[in-house]
């Protein structure tokens, strides 16, 4: 494969699509397909054939506003249709070339206007099982450019210059990590992609792996070239069978095209990728546990240092990045580090994908430039809190994140600002809560998650989260005392500071942040036996045996 050959493929795809007057794209991502977008696609194909019009019906990855699904987008007009069913297929096809179907039209201009699509630029536009679709949208051009025109250090320099930080939660500077691995000695190095995505409700990485799998492979290949690795692993949770299938297809097609394998593009660079399945333990997303799991061991974290960059898989230097991090690599190499650094805020560059859920009109997947204000996400992109309820808080960062109260919506979304507010960026979960949520109960929910997902290796996390859960349950049930509250705070401090890995170290965040901003709710439960949101069922305790 050469750049010329890539361009030839692009040409032929363009020629192919020129044969069609219209493109009807059907979102086949989980939310839409669970509402019957498979049948819808079949119906569209049939209707198109019957109409005699030149229509290409394409299945795509996630288009974003899942709550309006199943979604259909007609190109070149870019007309978006919502809640489409198989019964609407004929109406849509017959409208092609004329006026759009008004009843189905989805006006989400504001929703899309505030967004910037880098990671998701292909999702919703290409058939994820067709490598040529990917290539037609500049796919693998970055890899070719890197191999032909850049030195490994040049690639690292470009990534460093972009200011990209890890999207898996920690926000570690990606360029720095790459340069550490590249400097580590040894004849064998590995590149690992973290697709474990264990946060409840999060599906950013799944959407990328399912909607644009080659993007991930290309990023990994470029990374491998930059750090001097020849072998890659993608660790995907087994609950993502579609992602696994798409990645498997993508790897096969990339190998067939010579974009993976030995002597890629006729150079001395060889790189291949294997998929490894995770059994769905949240802690296996932690890098040292993930590495143990790939090695076939029990997935428990190890104390760092040594960091994987120095001693990772089988003791070799290992570059481990998140799916979304890799997905940012190709556009950065293509467009330059400065292009990327121009987006975002001071120390948080580029865009970030969030899974917007909870009490918000438009739930789904969004991609926004970092630095965007929270209110812009909630009010404009999200369409506000529905049913006349009032916004109470936003929970970011998954189970290790915190709750940011409604009066802080002017906060710009960046690693540092979220951290300072007592939450974290995390991998991109964003849960909107309204006045029907009890914040004590919310904290208890997240602690319960961490308690059940704790690996059990170190005592502060293993027993500390369980003790916190007991005390939070007492508070919710109205049997706690103010001493219990003090104890809860002491527990938070020890679990946070003494736990071995990130799971334990961040597990108290939901409690600490709700204590910081919603302390009165705790006090109401304890002293007045009242749950202001009416969620907790407080009754007189029964201690005596029957």
């Amino acid at each position, binding site marked *: 494969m050469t750049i010329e050959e890539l361009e030839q493929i692009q040409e032929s795809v363009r020629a192919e699509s020129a044969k069609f007057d219209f493109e009807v794209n059907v979102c086949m991502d989980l939310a839409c397909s669970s509402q019957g977008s498979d049948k819808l696609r079949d119906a569209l194909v049939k209707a198109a054939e019957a109409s005699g019009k030149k229509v290409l019906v394409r299945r795509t990855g996630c288009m974003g506003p899942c709550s309006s699904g199943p979604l259909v987008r007609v190109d070149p007009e870019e007309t978006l249709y919502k809640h489409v069913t198989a019964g609407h297929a004929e109406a849509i096809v017959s409208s092609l070339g004329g006026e759009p179907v008004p009843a189905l039209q989805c006006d989400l201009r504001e929703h899309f206007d505030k967004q910037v699509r880098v990671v998701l630029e292909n999702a919703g536009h290409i058939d994820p099982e067709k490598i040529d679709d990917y290539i037609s949208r500049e796919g693998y051009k970055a890899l070719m450019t890197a191999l032909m025109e850049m030195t490994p250090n040049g690639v690292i320099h470009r990534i460093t210059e972009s200011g990209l930080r890890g999207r898996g939660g920690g926000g570690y500077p990606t360029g720095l990590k790459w340069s550490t691995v590249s400097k580590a000695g040894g004849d064998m190095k590995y590149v690992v992609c973290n697709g474990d995505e264990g946060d409840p409700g999060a599906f950013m990485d799944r959407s990328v792996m399912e909607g644009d799998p080659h993007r991930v492979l290309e990023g990994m290949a470029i990374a491998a070239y930059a750090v001097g690795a020849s072998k890659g692993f993608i660790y995907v949770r087994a609950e993502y069978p579609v992602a696994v299938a798409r990645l498997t297809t993508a790897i096969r097609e990339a190998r067939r095209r010579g974009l993976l394998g030995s002597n890629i593009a006729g150079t001395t660079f060889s790189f291949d990728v294997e998929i490894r399945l995770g059994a769905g333990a949240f802690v296996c997303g932690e890098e040292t546990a993930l590495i143990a799991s790939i090695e076939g061991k029990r997935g428990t974290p190890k104390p760092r240092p040594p960091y994987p960059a120095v001693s990772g898989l089988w003791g070799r230097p290992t570059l481990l990045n998140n799916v979304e991090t890799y997905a940012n690599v190709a556009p950065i190499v293509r467009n330059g580090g400065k292009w990327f650094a121009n987006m975002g805020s001071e120390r948080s560059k580029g865009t970030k994908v969030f899974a917007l859920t909870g009490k918000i009109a438009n739930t789904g997947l969004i991609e926004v430039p970092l630095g965007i204000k929270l209110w812009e996400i909630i009010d404009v992109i999200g369409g506000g809190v529905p049913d006349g309820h009032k916004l109470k808080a936003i929970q970011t960062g998954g189970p290790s994140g915190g709750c940011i109260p409604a009066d802080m919506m002017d906060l710009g979304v960046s690693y540092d600002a979220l951290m300072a507010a007592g939450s974290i960026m995390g991998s991109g979960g964003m849960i909107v809560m309204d006045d029907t949520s009890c914040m004590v109960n919310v904290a208890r929910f997240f602690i319960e998650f961490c308690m*059940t997902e704790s690996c*059990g290796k170190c005592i502060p996390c293993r027993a500390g989260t369980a003790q916190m859960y007991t005390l939070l349950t007492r508070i919710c049930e109205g049997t706690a005392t103010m001493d219990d509250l003090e104890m809860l705070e002491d527990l938070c401090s020890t679990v946070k500071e*003494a736990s071995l890995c990130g799971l334990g170290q961040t597990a108290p965040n939901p409690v600490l942040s709700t204590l910081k901003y919603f302390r009165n709710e705790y006090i109401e439960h304890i002293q007045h036996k009242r749950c202001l949101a009416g969620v907790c069922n407080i009754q007189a305790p029964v201690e005596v045996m029957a």
Partner: protein
Amino acid sequence: MSDPVEVKTLIIDEQEVSALRGQTILEVARENDIDIPTLCHLEGLSDVGACRLCLVEIKGSNKLLPACVATVYEGMEVRTNTERLKKHRRMILEMLFAERNHICAVCVSNGHCELQAMGQEQGLTHIRLPYRNPKLTLDASHERFTADHNRCILCMRCVRVCAEIEGAHVWDVMGRGINSVVITDLNDEWGKSTCTRCGKCVQVCPTGALFDKSKIGSDHPKYPDFLPNLKMMREAQ
């Protein structure tokens, strides 16, 4: 092994000490009679950093480091006994005592238990946390030994000694989080497992979780000190 021998100087609790590159803070502290409490660490076994009792403060960093695995560097300033550390140690010990059913008065290890002694050393007079009182089993299927999960603190010494020293890897951990338990083979009865009956796990177990049946009702001290000697002899071979 190709590390050039290099001497580092550092400060532990206001005392200047020297160390070899690659040594852990714990090793250096013990060489200099500076006491850092440990439970999961045992000389002769690999370190896992699980009990978190050995956490120390490093000047210039907010993060606490486990002394049993953290290695020294030139100019490092270590503090091993600050109020912050004492607070965490106390809380960790309380978590351990409240986690399972530690009834010292009727325990086979009463008087010889590392957890019990550590509680006393750290001035623990009561447990502020609610006792969890889980319902746990006791495996007496082995002709010589018993495993009482009520007393286990999941230090993993048994797992490590069996895999690393005896080479049998009979012990492992099953389950997650608060439900973790040590098991023999694939959760088979100890008596029916591939146990070689060497008894090393019993000797290294810091509590009354693993004990020798012949010692029930009598004193049951344990002798984990055989490990460094065994290692030395093996290395000499």
